[in-house]
């Protein structure tokens, strides 16, 4: 089982090719930056092909481990073991493939941009750290890569350095992630204090359930909340859309944000039932809030961002209800169709931008109210977008239908026959299905169908951008995932075995989807662009203002207090001591000059006076001498005789 030798080379290729791409981008001089785009894409292609080879040479349910010693502290060893199992092989394929497609797309999308080397370098670096995260068998190593993906995300969101909004968004993303990561770190500390190992192989096979596990798993879940943008930390993800759109596709839709769900699935066995309940509730709350927010957006990227948050929430709920398999399944399908949606949206925006620069017009190219009727101008993009959107909405015959179905089935099974709060989750899940259909329909309708006043000559984006789109759209259909369009069987579904399935749920959800579609049709096609939104929902339930009020402001105040303490109190005491000392010194100096020196002066004066008095006897006047001598003699005699 632990024979790993045949995979060493493959794993090495998969992981190190993106790293090599990252390093290469720094070596190539600026003049040849066009070379970077090609080289990086080729490296990713190598990586993708290697993972494909690995995918086909490992059979499902096989598991290997590559032993790597990282470092030792005292008696404890921290290893960097790599684990090859269902999950990691599948995720590796997904990550390398989407990353490759995004590289390909970026060649077209980023053409002519200034910081192209930095861009491709960070894409490579991100892929490398993401692969490390997927493969690691050690919680510390996972945390290591976990932070690194956050770092690459920071730089990629802030890729357009001159854009202040991008810088702010990057900073916010990293900080929110950091807050979650600190929770993760505390979880690590709890695990460490109790087991002295981070080895997942050992941790996941603990003999009994310990009381610390609830705290530890909740803390680890904090990390997930940060990275996968769950309630209450989800607001960073919609801001993260300030980055280039391929980045949003790769990092903020398909892979990095899904890392939280991946981690949950990975350490699922460590979680206690109480912790899982919390996970389920948080996931569902996120899914609903984000779904409602998505309904109220006008910016195409924001709609997609909130939809991502919502879908991630659904996956987290699935883990919470105990079906990490369903969550992983949805993760895979979601990655494919969401990447496709983002890239297609990017193609739309790109085309509008091109047209704008030709016609010298200027309006917000991301606002869906400014689009409309694009299905004629952009036929390929239109078809691709609709396919992916159908998958997102969970229309039958698409991959999203299969995975969402298993998710809901998992919740169904979990909620049981007796009425309890679990039913709330189930009802919410059905409601969410409906909401998803609504916002997807609204988006598609606004972009491609509704009428618009502007008559820009919008044309298709270059073929190098359309290839990945078409590929991903095909991957969004059921065939890529499963043989049966209504029940996950075969193909990739094989890798995630034991997926829950229930015909009753399938029927109910199809019914809901059809009803929602009809409702959406009646609402959005008639009212067209006058569709109003509620600002409170549009701004993600104003969580940002809340944070500003309860976190940012107190901290700013606290820093001011700290600064004052330093300057006024600590330095003040110091200065006071110094002044006191100097004052005492002055007093002593006064004492010295006036009392001690004064005494000396008095003595001197006395001596002087005595001296000058005695000297007055010796004026060189002989007669006076004689007089004194005689007087003395007389006095002497006087005393002698009497």
């Amino acid at each position, binding site marked *: 089982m632990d024979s790993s030798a045949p995979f060493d080379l493959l794993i090495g290729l998969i992981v190190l090719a993106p790293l090599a791409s990252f390093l290469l981008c720094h070596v190539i001089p600026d003049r040849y930056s066009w070379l970077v785009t090609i080289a990086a894409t080729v490296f990713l292609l190598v990586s993708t092909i290697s993972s494909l080879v690995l995918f086909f040479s490992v059979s499902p349910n096989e598991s290997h481990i590559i032993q790597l010693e990282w470092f030792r502290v005292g008696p404890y060893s921290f290893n960097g073991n790599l684990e090859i199992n269902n999950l990691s092989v599948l995720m590796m394929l997904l990550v390398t493939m989407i990353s490759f497609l995004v590289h390909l797309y970026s060649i077209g999308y980023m053409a002519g941009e200034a910081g192209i080397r930095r861009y491709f370098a960070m894409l490579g670096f991100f892929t490398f750290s993401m692969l490390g995260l997927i493969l690691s068998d050690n919680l510390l190593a996972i945390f290591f890569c976990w932070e690194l993906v956050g770092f690459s995300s920071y730089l990629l969101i802030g890729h357009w350095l001159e854009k202040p909004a991008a810088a702010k968004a990057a900073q916010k993303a990293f900080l929110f992630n950091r807050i979650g990561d600190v929770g993760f770190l505390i979880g690590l500390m709890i695990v460490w204090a109790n087991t002295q190992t981070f080895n997942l192989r050992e941790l996941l096979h603990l003999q009994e359930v310990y009381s610390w596990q609830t705290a530890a798993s909740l803390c680890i879940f904090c990390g997930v909340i940060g990275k996968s943008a769950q309630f209450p930390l989800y607001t960073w993800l919609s801001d993260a859309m300030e980055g280039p759109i391929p980045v949003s596709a790769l990092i903020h839709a398909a892979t990095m944000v899904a890392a939280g769900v991946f981690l949950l699935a990975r350490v699922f066995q460590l979680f206690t039932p109480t912790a899982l309940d919390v996970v389920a509730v948080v996931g569902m709350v996120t899914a609903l809030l984000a779904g409602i927010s998505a309904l109220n957006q006008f910016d195409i990227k924001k709609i997609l961002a909130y939809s991502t948050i919502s879908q991630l929430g659904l996956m987290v709920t699935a883990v919470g209800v105990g079906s990490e398999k369903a969550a992983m399944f949805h993760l895979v399908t979601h990655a494919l169709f969401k990447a496709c949606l983002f890239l297609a949206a990017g193609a739309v925006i790109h085309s509008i931008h091109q047209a704008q620069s030709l016609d010298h017009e200027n309006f917000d190219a991301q606002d869906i109210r400014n689009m409309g009727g694009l299905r004629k101008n952009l036929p390929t993009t239109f078809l691709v977008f609709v396919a992916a959107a159908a998958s997102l909405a969970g229309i039958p015959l698409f991959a999203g239908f299969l995975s969402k179905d298993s998710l809901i089935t998992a919740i169904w099974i979990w909620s049981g026959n007796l009425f309890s709060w679990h039913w709330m989750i189930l009802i919410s899940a059905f409601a969410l299905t409906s909401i998803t259909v609504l916002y997807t329909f609204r988006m598609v309708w606004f972009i491609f169908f509704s009428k618009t006043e502007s008559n820009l000559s919008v044309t298709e984006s270059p073929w190098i951008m359309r290839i990945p789109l078409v590929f991903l759209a095909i991957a969004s259909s059921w065939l890529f995932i499963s043989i049966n369009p209504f029940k996950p069987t075969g193909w990739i579904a094989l890798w995630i075995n034991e997926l829950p399935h229930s015909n009753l749920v399938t029927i109910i959800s199809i019914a809901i989807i059809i009803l929602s579609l009809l409702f959406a049709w009646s609402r959005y096609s008639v009212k067209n662009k006058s569709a109003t939104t509620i600002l409170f929902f549009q701004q993600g339930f104003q969580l940002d203002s809340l944070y500003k009020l309860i976190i940012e402001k107190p901290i700013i105040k606290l820093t001011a207090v700290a600064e004052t303490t330093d300057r006024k109190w600590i330095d003040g005491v110091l200065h006071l001591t110094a002044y006191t000392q100097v004052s005492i010194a002055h007093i002593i100096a006064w004492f010295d000059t006036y009392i001690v020196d004064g005494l000396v002066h008095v003595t001197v004066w006395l001596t002087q006076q005595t001296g000058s008095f005695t000297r007055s006897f*010796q*004026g*060189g*006047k*002989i*007669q006076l001498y*004689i*007089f004194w001598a*005689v007087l003395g003699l007389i006095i002497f005699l006087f005393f002698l005789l009497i």
Partner: protein
Amino acid sequence: MFPTEHILYLSVFLFSIGLMVIIIKKNAIMVLLGIELLLNASNLNLIAFNRLQPELFTGQIFSLFVIVVAVCEAAVGLAIVLRVYKHYQTSVLNEISELKE
């Protein structure tokens, strides 16, 4: 015969006058005179005490000796006063205080 005491009183009187002259008088010659007075007072004393042993003439001889010395001293003293006067153009003692500072 005078009693001896009277002679001694005279001697004391003379001595006191001599001393006063030495201390008070400004002129060096007057001081020399004062010294002569002192010497004479002591001569008187010598002679007066010679009465106690009349068979010896020690007192008289000593007084003669003193007279001789006084003469010499007066001669030398006057010579010095003369030199001093020539040098300083004065014989007032207070003005030739070279010992002073």
